[in-house]
C-alpha cells in the first residue's frame, strides 16, 4: 500500500472502490494442468489457483464504472482504446437503454479489451488469462473437465451456432459449473488478458502447419484436439480481434490471484 501513488489514491476515493465489487460474487478455481488447444503435442499449461467472477460483467455494473470514470464514457474514450462500436447499444454516455436487458442485467458487450481491462482494474481485479479462462471453461455442472464429453461439447456448439440479437440473456441465465461459475458458455464471448497470444492468421489451413513467414518457429504445431470444434471457434474469434475492437457478442468478466492466506 505504501507504493500507491497519489494518482491511485485519488482514483480510489473517486471510485469508492467496489460499489461494483461489493455485489460481486467470485469462485475459487483450484489450479491444475491442461493441454492447450494450440500447442505442441506434449505441451501442458499449468494454471495456478485463482478466483473468477461468477458472472460476466453486466451493463449495470459497467454503468457504475463509467459514471465514476468519465474517460471511459463512450463520447470520451480516445479512439486508440475503443473503436466506433464502443457501447454502441447504449443510448447515451450514462444510459444503457433497453438493449442492456432488464435492469441492465445482460452482459455488457461492445467493449474493447482496453475498456474491459480498465474496468477490472477499477474493481480491484484483472482480466483472466487465456489459460485461466480456458481451464475454468472445461467444467460442466458436474465435473471440472468435461471437454471430452460429446454432449457437453454439443451444448457449447449449439450456442455458437445460433445468432444472438440484443438484448442478450441475463448473466445469471445458464448452467452453473462445478466451481460455481455461470455463463462461460452460452452467453457471450469473453475477453482475456492475453487474447493476442493467439497466433492464427485467419487462414486456418495455414495455421494448421508451421508458418515461418509470419511467425517465429514453433508457432502453431497442430492442435491438441481437432474435434473440439468449440475451442477452434473461440480461438478463431480471439485471433480475429484487435484491442480496440468492440463487438456485439463479446463481453468479459474479471479474475484475481488467490489471496495468499
Amino acid at each position, binding site marked *: 500500500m505504501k507504493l500507491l501513488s497519489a494518482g491511485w489514491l485519488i482514483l480510489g476515493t473517486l471510485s469508492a472502490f467496489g460499489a461494483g465489487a461489493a455485489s460481486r460474487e467470485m469462485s475459487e478455481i483450484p489450479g491444475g494442468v491442461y493441454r492447450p488447444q494450440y500447442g505442441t503435442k506434449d505441451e501442458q499449461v499449468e494454471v495456478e489457483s485463482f478466483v473468477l467472477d461468477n458472472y460476466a460483467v453486466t451493463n449495470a455494473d459497467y454503468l457504475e464504472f463509467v459514471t465514476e470514470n468519465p474517460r471511459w464514457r463512450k463520447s470520451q474514450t480516445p479512439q486508440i482504446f475503443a473503436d466506433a462500436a464502443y457501447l454502441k447499444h447504449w443510448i447515451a454516455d450514462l444510459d444503457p437503454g433497453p438493449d442492456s436487458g432488464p435492469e441492465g442485467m445482460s452482459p455488457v458487450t461492445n467493449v474493447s479489451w482496453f475498456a474491459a481491462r480498465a474496468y477490472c482494474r477499477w474493481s480491484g481485479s484483472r482480466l483472466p488469462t487465456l489459460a485461466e479462462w480456458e481451464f475454468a471453461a472445461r467444467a460442466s455442472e458436474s465435473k471440472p473437465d468435461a471437454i471430452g464429453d460429446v454432449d457437453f461439447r454439443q451444448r457449447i456448439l449449439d450456442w455458437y451456432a445460433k445468432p444472438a440479437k440484443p438484448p442478450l440473456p441475463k448473466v445469471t441465465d445458464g448452467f452453473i459449473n462445478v466451481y460455481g461459475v455461470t455463463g462461460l458458455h452460452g452467453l457471450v464471448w469473453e475477453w482475456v488478458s492475453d487474447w493476442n497470444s493467439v497466433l492464427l492468421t485467419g*487462414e486456418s489451413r495455414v495455421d494448421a502447419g508451421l508458418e515461418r513467414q509470419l511467425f517465429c518457429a514453433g508457432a502453431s504445431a497442430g492442435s491438441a484436439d481437432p474435434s473440439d470444434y468449440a475451442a477452434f471457434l473461440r480461438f478463431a474469434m480471439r485471433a480475429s480481434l484487435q484491442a480496440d475492437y468492440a463487438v456485439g457478442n463479446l463481453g468479459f468478466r474479471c479474475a484475481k490471484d488467490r489471496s495468499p492466506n
Partner: protein
Amino acid sequence: MRVSILITIAWLFLATMLPATHVSHAAEVKGEEHAVLTAAPSVPPLITRKHSTKVIVELEVRERVGTIAEGVEYTFWTFGGTVPGRFIRVREGDQVEFHLKNHPDNKVPHNIDLHAVTGPGGGATSSFTPPGHESIFSFAALNPGLYVYHCATAPVGMHIANGMYGLILVDSKKGLPKVDREYYVMQGDFYTVGSNGDTGLQTFSMEKALREDAEYVVFNGSVGALTGDHALQAEVGETVRLYVGNGGPNLVSSFHVIGEIFDEVRIEAGDAINRNVQTTLVPAGGAAIVDFKVDVPGTFILVDHSIFRAFNKGALGMLKVTGKPNTAVYSGQQDQRIYLPEGGAVQTTPEPAPKPKLAANKAERIEMGRGAYQTNCVACHQADGQGIAGAFPPLAKSDYLNADVNRAIDTVLSGLQGEITVNGEPYNNVMPSLGLSDEKIANILTYVLNSWDNDGGEVSPAQVSKRRKK
C-alpha cells in the same frame, strides 16, 4: 489507423502475389463499377463491356435461421443471406476490390477464400473479420473460369457445413458462347444433430460431419429449393447453361439431369470441353459448366446420381421445359416418370420436403425415438440415460419412471419441478416443457422404456393425446 492498415494489407497482398503482372493490369483498367450479386438460381447479367475495370464487390456475412426442409430449421452462415452465397460475375483482367462485411449480430469471425484469387489463402488472410467489422482487399482476376468461394475460418469444416460457399465467374475476354438461359445451382451437404425429417431448429453435428454422414444433401441450400414452383424454367429449343458448384464440405457430386445429355461440359469449369456427357463429377470445392439444348417439353430432374442422396436426402431439382412436343426426338407418352426407374413418388409430386414420417410399429417407434431422444433429452439425461448426479435424474433403470408411465408422459408434456426421489436419490430441479408432438413423445418414451434395463412397454400417440387433454 485501422483503415490505413487494411489498405496496407490489401496492398501487400497484391504486391506479393502479383509482382509483375499487376502493373500491366493496372494500366488497362478503366473506370469502376459495383458488381451485381444474385441469389441462386439467378446469374448476374452478361458482361458486355470490352475492357477491364475496377469492380467493387460488397458481400455481407449473415448468420441466420432458415429452412432446410419443411418444418426443419437450421442456422445458416451465409455470404449475402442465402445458401449458396451470392453469385459474383467479373471479367478476366478486372481489378476486384472486395469488401467483406461481418454483420454485428453475428457470433463468429469469418473470412473468404475465393478460388479465383491467385495469392496466399485466396484472400482468407486478408479478410479475417470479427462481427461488426469489414475487411477490404483487392485482387486481379487473372484466370477465366468458374470458381468456388468459401469461408476458411477455423473450424473450416463447420463454416462450410453451415453454408458458407458460393460461386464467382470470371468471364474470359472473349466470353463463353451465348446461350438462352443461365442458372446457378450449387450442392451442399448438411449435418444436423436430429435425423433427416426431425422438425424444429436443428444444430450442427460435428460427430456426423466427421463421419461424413450427411442428413441432408441439397441443391441451393434446402430441400425443394429447385422443385415445384421453384423449378428452373426453359422453353423447347432453347440452350441452357448451368453453373454447377459443389460447396461440400464432404461429398463429391455426380451431377446428372435425368432425361438430358449435356452437349458440352467444361470439365471442372476449366478449359477442357467434353461433349455428350451423361453425368459429370463436381468435386467438393469445385465446379463445372454444363450446356445443353432442350429439345422436348417436360420436367427434367436434376440429381446427384449418388442416388440415395437425391431421393432420401434432398439432392433433387427440376427443370421445367414448356413448348411443343417434338416426337422426332422423343416419341413415347409424354410422361416424365418413364425416366424415373426409382419410382415416381418424389418426382411426380413436387413436394418440397418429406413429411415427418409416422412410426408404423413398436420397432420403428423405438428407432425414431432414439433420434428424437438425442435431440431433445440428451443434454440433461445424457446419452445412456444415466443423468447427472445431483442435477438430472437418471432415466436408466429409473424406479420413478417405471412405476407410472402416465406420470412420465405428463413429465415430458408439461415439465416437472419440485422434489422427487429417483432410485433413492433426491432431485429438486426444473425440467422444462419441451413442446413436442404426441407422436414424438410416444416415440421417445417407448425408446426410453425399452432401453437401459427399463421395464419395456409401448406408449402410443393416442395415450399421449389423452394425457394432454386432461
